[in-house]
């Protein structure tokens, strides 16, 4: 893949959380790159600073030291240019808005326009346009969150354990859905997960982090070709990559 502009360029990122007497070193000198059109996963144990890193990239958190570049500019500027799409584990849909009204939210905020019906079709929720979030399953809600994150045409999709709260079957379905969607659109993705298999299946590259303080311990290029399907998970090449990521995590029980 030829990289023109870096979608994400993190250099020497360190972040401390201060809580009165104690300080917690969440990130310690982290470097991270995501190329334009590249799908990069961050894998690591709980509390290794994955979410902190993603929030710094999203401009939702001011890191203690280090620099973060997003699409050739600062995270704050990237937010102002409305080029970020955010999907979180708890999707944070507005319960008083129907599915279609939730997906319209970013359009209202940014003043952008988009074919919302087409957007709903893209993620397979066109039949639920008039439903309210509470009437939907967890998987369906994440599809809404995905449609909402894509509505204003972002160039970088930031996903923080988007399938973490789903049951295994919904998770599988959402992986396939995301693969299908991404392989058509090729927008840059930074994907946080604690599932090794998920990371390997989806990504061009897996960045492995260790816990407290969060450091990058390995980077595993995933040379499996595209398009990918879940059948890939049965191959030896896939198993080898999973082993390598697991080794990077230091043989922690997964």
């Amino acid at each position, binding site marked *: 893949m030829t990289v023109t502009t870096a979608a994400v360029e993190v250099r020497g990122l360190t972040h401390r959380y201060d809580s009165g007497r104690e300080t917690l070193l969440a990130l310690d000198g982290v470097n991270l790159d995501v190329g334009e059109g590249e799908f990069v996963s961050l894998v690591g144990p709980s509390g290794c600073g994955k979410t902190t890193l993603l*929030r710094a990239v*999203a*401009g*939702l958190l001011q890191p203690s030291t280090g620099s973060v570049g997003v699409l050739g500019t600062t995270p704050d500027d990237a*937010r*102002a240019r*409305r080029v*970020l*799409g*955010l999907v*979180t584990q*708890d*999707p*944070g*849909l*507005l*319960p*008083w808005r129907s599915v279609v009204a939730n997906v319209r*939210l*970013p359009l*209202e*905020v*940014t003043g952008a326009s988009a074919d919302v019906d087409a957007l709903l079709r893209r993620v397979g929720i066109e039949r639920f346009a008039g439903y*309210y979030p*509470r009437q939907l399953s967890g998987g369906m809600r994440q599809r809404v969150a995905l449609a*909402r*994150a894509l509505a*204003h045409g972002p160039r970088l999709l*930031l996903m923080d354990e988007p399938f973490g709260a789903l049951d295994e079957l919904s998770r599988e379905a959402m992986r396939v859905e995301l693969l299908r969607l991404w392989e058509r659109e090729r927008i840059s993705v930074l994907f946080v997960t604690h599932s090794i298999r998920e990371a390997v299946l989806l990504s061009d590259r897996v960045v492995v982090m260790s816990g407290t303080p969060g450091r990058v311990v390995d980077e595993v290029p995933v040379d499996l070709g595209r398009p990918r399907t879940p059948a890939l998970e049965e191959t030896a090449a896939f198993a080898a990559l999973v082993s390598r990521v697991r080794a990077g995590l230091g043989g922690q029980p997964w």
Partner: protein
Amino acid sequence: MPDATDVVDLPGLPAEQEAAPARRGGATGALGRWLGLGFAPGLAAVVLLAAWEVWVRARDVQEYLLPPPSAVAQALADEPMRYIDASRLSLTAAMGGLLIASAGAFALAVVMAHSRPLERALYPPALMLKVTPIVAIYPLFTIWFGFGIWPKMLIAALITFFPMLVNAVIGLRSVDPQAYDFMRSLDASRWQVFWRLRLPSSLPYVFAALRISVPLSLIGAVVAEFLSGTSGMGQLILIANGDFDTPALFGAVVVLAALGVTLTGAVSYLERRVLTWHESSRGV
């Protein structure tokens, strides 16, 4: 703020607790609701009133001590305009005060919800207002505002101000952090966040406050009328009391209770209509 949980968890009318499971049940649900809400309490009331009537007559209790329900009904039927006029004055004072307080408290809550320093600065005086026995302020109000409707309205306003303030501040702060992050990732303005996220998030708390405040506003108005003795149900009660006209006194209590129930019911109805999205999560 311990008040908040008190305020929010305070039970409303039985109607809204029992109506929720029945609503989806169709014909049997409606019947069950009718039986549960109308019939059983109605029967209990009839039995109670009949027992009261019989007991008073059998024991030949003096009417000024405890009038039979029939005498109370007679008092209401004899002079309906007396009660209607008095209620109109009391209602005006109560609702006017509630309106002033709710609008003012919500506006202040918006300011406080956006600024921790301002919240810290403004909370103590608001709390002081809350713990001060409002009746003690009334003489001051008559000096400033005379004996018209204004001092009564202001008493009703003072007594309802705090529940709305506390609930509105908490409501405006109780935004889903993920939804907030999403809006921030789009560089949404404060106004957009307020209008699309904070305000709708606060509505369940605002309605909870209203359910507390509506009966409080009536209390405030009637107490103020007691103290001034110049108008409304408070005055009616004072006069009836002076005349040993106990049936009229009971009549006033019945009318005030009916007003309280009706107003609270109206708030609950409005709440159900506005908060359809919130209702189901609360109904179970």
